[in-house]
């Protein structure tokens, strides 16, 4: 029993240390984002890898999600003769939830695992020690550019997913359900306008871009954290990539809930 208690205590202590290290890493990485020297070239390379590299998979994800959403909703809405509202349903679902969350999950699976594996293999092959031996701070060189890239690229990718998803829904609505494109698109716009505007921008659109900003930070920071803490050779690199994807996925879903709650309060009408 005492052994069990000691084991639990050790695990809890290890977890709390890990959480603390995670936030210290975040703090240092963000501080380096505003203090020179800057690694702009690395940042642009990372934007290309995370953003352009993820584009094909993101487009496919958005397209098929929009299509299946339209297809499923058409079956239910048809029972009430309400097929004309497919656009409202697809637009709201894509912009508010599915676009940001699915985009983040796909980027976590593709780019997040890649970042964890890359930094992890740098750790086990002493490349990070080599960086330090040349007077380079590995957080400034490796983590900060990736976090900046994630923060910039995720909102852009989410806009692509939203747009492609709505287009996918439009295809199904027009060619399978038989409603006209203008009715579908009118439904999408009505839904976005319904929640109100901040300036020229619909509140749903803003809420849909705040989330990916948070997700971009979470994915890159978590991947870098696991990469930097890789131990045990090539096996450790695999474990770091796996842990990164699992943790990112759980964090994305959990943070999505809290951000939704927050947005409902902050952006509530009136």
């Amino acid at each position, binding site marked *: 029993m005492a052994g069990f208690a000691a084991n639990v205590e050790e695990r809890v202590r290890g977890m709390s240390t890990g959480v603390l290290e995670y936030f210290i890493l975040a703090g240092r990485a963000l501080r380096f984002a505003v203090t020179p*020297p800057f690694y702009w070239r690395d940042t642009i390379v990372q934007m290309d890898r995370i953003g352009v590299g993820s584009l094909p998979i993101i487009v496919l994800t958005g397209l098929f999600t929009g299509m299946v959403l339209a297809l499923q909703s058409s079956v239910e809405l048809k029972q009430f003769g309400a097929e004309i509202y497919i656009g409202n349903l697809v637009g709201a679902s894509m912009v508010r939830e599915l676009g940001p969350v699915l985009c983040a999950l796909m980027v976590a699976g593709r780019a997040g695992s890649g970042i964890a594996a890359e930094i992890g*293999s*740098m750790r086990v*092959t*002493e*490349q990070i*020690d*080599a960086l*330090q*031996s*040349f*007077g*380079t*701070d590995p957080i400034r060189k490796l983590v900060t550019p990736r976090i900046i890239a994630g923060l910039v690229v995720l909102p852009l990718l989410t806009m692509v997913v939203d747009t492609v998803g709505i287009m996918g829904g439009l295809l199904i609505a027009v060619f399978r359900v038989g409603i006209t494109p203008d009715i579908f698109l009118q439904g999408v716009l009505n839904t976005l306008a319904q929640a109100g505007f901040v300036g020229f921008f619909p509140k749903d659109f803003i809420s849909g871009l705040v989330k990916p900003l948070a997700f971009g930070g979470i994915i890159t920071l978590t991947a870098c954290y696991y990469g930097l803490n890789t131990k045990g050779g090539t096996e450790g690199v695999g474990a770091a990539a796996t842990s990164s994807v699992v943790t990112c996925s759980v964090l994305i879903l959990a943070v999505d809930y809290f951000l939704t709650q927050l947005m409902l309060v902050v952006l509530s009408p009136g």
Partner: protein
Amino acid sequence: MMTEEVDRPPVSAAQDAKPDDAAHERRTEAGAGRRAEDSAGARASREGADHLDVIREELENDRRTEANVAEGRPIIRLEDVHLAFDLPVLDGVSLEVRERETLMVAGESGTGKSTILKLILRLLVPESGSVCVFDQEVQDLTFKEALDLRRRIGMVFQNSALFDSLSVFENVAYPLRERNDHLSEEDIRDAVHQRLEFVDLNPAQVDDQLPSQLSGGMKKRVGVARAIITDPEVVLYDEPTAGLDPLTIGKFNDLVRKLQRELGVTSVLVTHDIRTGFRVASRVNLLREGRIVFDGTPEEMVAADDPYIKRFLG
């Protein structure tokens, strides 16, 4: 758990180095063996010789050691350093590296040899004891001061640790770019090509190659070129000959000696490859279970009567 041999103070080479009768007997037997095999050729007889004998022979044939023994001031000093991760790694290590000398830190795998190099670079900080480099206590340095310290030291890593995503040229140029001395691209190119030529690589052939396209020996050479690009005062080598074939090891040893001779750098060589170490080092520290158990010249180590040292030398 420390053994009796380890708990003893380091073997004083001057006091304990005495004729090794057992080795002498083995040498005599080996000599007899060689005579018997003369008809089969000198090569076969050499293969049959005792390993320790071969080391002695190499040392006798190679008088560079005396010339390399440095009398300079100590520039790296570890005093009673303790460090543990899950288990104790260093258990009261004290050593000294003098200016322009080459110190070999030998020992079995897992005895904390590479840890010593990481302490010198302040990649690790000791739990107790003192690590003093260039008259600075490394554990008292701020992060920025530690970065400045590292810029005065070059390190050749065990597996070269070249950056996979950068070409050979960019790998070697990396420390220069990081120093941000406002060098022109032309100056950087000249410096990189000069160092590549110094390590016997043809810049025109290797400049654009990625590390994955190089052989093990070439990677080591690029690693050395990168380590010396900033003209460091100290070069640290971590198992530099691990995984190399004997011919490449020979070339690498020549390169290390060329560095000593032509650039006059102070070197710390961590290895369990005794023959490589003896060919380049002026002094040897033997590490066992986290403690230095021998401090002396290669000749004194070969002549030492300590049973563990004899076993280690094979």
